């Protein structure tokens, strides 16, 4: 099945959420609108709506994660679902069980949704194409490929603070090569019609033929940041670095770290974003991370509402599938 169409059902409703690529602008807006309606829920004294009552959501994490897993868990609980957290890094696969065996075992326990993080690109797509028809798969990050809920919470944050996407210039800075977040952000930003997407980084960390993604590539951060509305800093992932990508953290911070003087080149009201966790003094100076332009903590808050929206949307398709059987 086609990578883009597998995530939609026959009525074009969201069945799985695997990648932003190929989704229509109207669907991305629907996710943000629904997230907007959920964002009130967290502020109520009873922080729950019964949309997923009786459903079981499995957080299937083959890679460690704190923020993403916790916000997915909170989102599911606020929708009244039962949540099961499975950390596979220390579980079945080390006993020689294949990914498919693990999935079939969980299916046998009558789960309704898998939220999956895995180190291999394409794993969420692989899982979605092998699960039983009533199960929805949400990609919580697959290798370097995609992290679509992170991208949607970033879009939600931008929309709240900046309004119309069409006039915005957005810069994404850092390790684009290994970043699933950046790939999903680029697809989301171009689908939502921003004026310009810039990617900034040393040649060793910019993927081959990056411009085919519809971005402008800059190696000089000062040029790249000029007049942008949004600065998205990426985490420098030490754990992925297995070769000579960079001479040192020190030189990286000198050239590509976000500091006050560099940020001054962006528009005065530019916002600074980061998917977290941040490395203070490596890709971003502490005073910027905590400064007035930083919206990093708001991103985390918005993550819950956006993940609630995505889960609620896929469960609509799920309900229709159950009715049909």
């Amino acid at each position, binding site marked *: 099945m086609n990578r883009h169409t597998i995530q939609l059902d026959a009525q074009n409703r969201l069945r799985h959420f695997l990648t932003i690529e190929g989704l229509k602008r109207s669907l991305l807006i629907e996710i943000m609108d629904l997230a907007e309606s959920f964002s009130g829920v967290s502020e109520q004294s009873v922080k729950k709506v019964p949309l997923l009552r009786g459903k079981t959501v499995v957080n299937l994490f083959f890679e460690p994660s704190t923020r993403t897993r916790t916000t997915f868990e909170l989102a599911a609980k606020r929708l009244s679902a039962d949540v099961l957290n499975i950390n596979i890094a220390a579980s079945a696969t080390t006993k020689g069980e294949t990914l498919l065996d693990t999935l079939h075992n969980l299916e046998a326990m009558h789960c309704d949704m898998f939220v999956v993080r895995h180190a291999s690109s394409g794993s969420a797509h692989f899982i979605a194409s092998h699960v039983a028809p009533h199960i929805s798969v949400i990609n919580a990050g697959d290798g370097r490929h995609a992290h679509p809920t992170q991208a949607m919470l970033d879009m939600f944050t931008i929309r709240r603070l900046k309004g119309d996407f069409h006039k915005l210039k957005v810069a994404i800075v850092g390790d684009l090569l290994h970043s699933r977040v950046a790939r999903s952000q680029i697809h989301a930003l171009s689908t939502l019609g921003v004026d310009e997407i810039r990617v900034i980084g040393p040649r060793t960390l910019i993927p*081959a033929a990056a411009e085919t993604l519809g971005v402008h590539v800059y190696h000089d951060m000062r040029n790249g940041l000029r007049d942008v509305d949004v600065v998205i800093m990426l985490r420098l992932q030490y754990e992925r670095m297995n070769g000579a990508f960079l001479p040192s953290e020190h030189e990286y911070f000198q050239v590509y770290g976000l500091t006050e003087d560099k940020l001054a080149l962006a528009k005065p009201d530019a916002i600074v974003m980061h998917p977290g966790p941040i490395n203070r003094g490596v890709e971003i100076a502490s005073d910027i991370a905590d400064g007035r332009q930083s919206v990093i903590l708001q991103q985390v808050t918005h993550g819950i509402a956006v993940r609630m929206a995505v889960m609620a949307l896929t469960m609509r398709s799920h309900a229709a599938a159950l009715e049909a059987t």
Partner: protein
Amino acid sequence: MRIRISHGRIIDPASGVDSIQDLYIAAGCIVALGRAPAGFSADRTLDAQGLIVCPGLIDLRAQLREPGEEHKATIASETRAAAQSGITTLCCPPATTPVVDTPAVVNLIRNRARQIGLAKVLPLGALTRGLDGQQLTEMRALKEAGCPGVSNDLRPLANLLVLRRAMEYAATHDLTLFLQPEDAALANSGCVHEGPVATRLGLPGIPAMAETTALASMLALAEQTGARCHFQLLTTERAVQMIAEAQAQGLPVTADVSAYHLQLTDLDVLDFDSLCHVRPPLRSQRDRDALRNGLGSHVLAAICSDHQPHEADAKLAPFVETAPGISGLETLLPLALKLVDQNILSLSAAIATITTHPAQILRLQDGGTLSPGQPADVCIFDPLHYWTLDPHHMHSRGHNTPFLDWELKGRVVYTLLDGVLIHERGAILE
């Protein structure tokens, strides 16, 4: 057994024959074309009206998985598939378990194939012991045991000094080196062509320079040592140019390409289709077109299947974690014929890439031609038979092919091995 093959269109690129005439076989050999020899009376006549009669196909690269990986395939299962696909000679890489680095393993494989009697199997010898990239094997002994050449498969050599010595030593014993140019460090842990598709999918890439830099050093050493080299599975435009330049200089180098690299590109990986996970990777359309032109201009002399049968589980995982390789025996002939419809090769030239030219690369004393006196290894196929590759009707144990559901043209009707009819319309004759 005396056999007359009647009214077929005989295409024998080695002798330039392309005409409708009869072919006569006796005592395992071809005895005449056209007119029957005096006193010839056929025990069996095969009606080849409307069919093409050509030499039995010779596949320069097919993994049979035995010894060592019998859960994937066996010599019995794969030579059966070969017979059904018109392939009478299979050259297999040395990466079995144990590795083909001693005459004992060569004998084991050849004896097994001889017992089964459905194809001639020629194992390449390992270039280094255990393919460890360091210590040369006893190449002279391997040659005497029947290896047509030596290869280190896709395993890296420790350094260029080992390659230099290997070339000098192989040349001493008049052995051809079968080389796969790929720099292991540049290939890194990649699994697809480095380019827009890899970037989009977030899959680690293998850059074209992994092939071209390795090929450049190999060619530089070949020039200095004078060793005869055959380069396998080229994938890039630049590599084709480099081979052309080396040939123009007069170096004794030849090259082949897989049937699937001539049809697929990295765009076929776009759905994370693990059936398109191959090594070396599928490259850009520009590279694929250059490979096709390289065949047309004879820089690339042969097409191989690069047959790699796998069990189903090997492809059932996220893309990066799947085993690379395609089960290719059954599509070798139809994909070579496809190049005729694509106006890249004439029919006779297409047949030459899977018969005459591989025979020359392997320096076979006999085989690869239908001249009288040669062993009667013959493939008879219907060039107008349209069929669809269906996993339930595949003969190879490996059903891992991206060509499932492709409409293919050209199907083998009869296969003869040493004058014995071993396959007739999909049935193996024991």
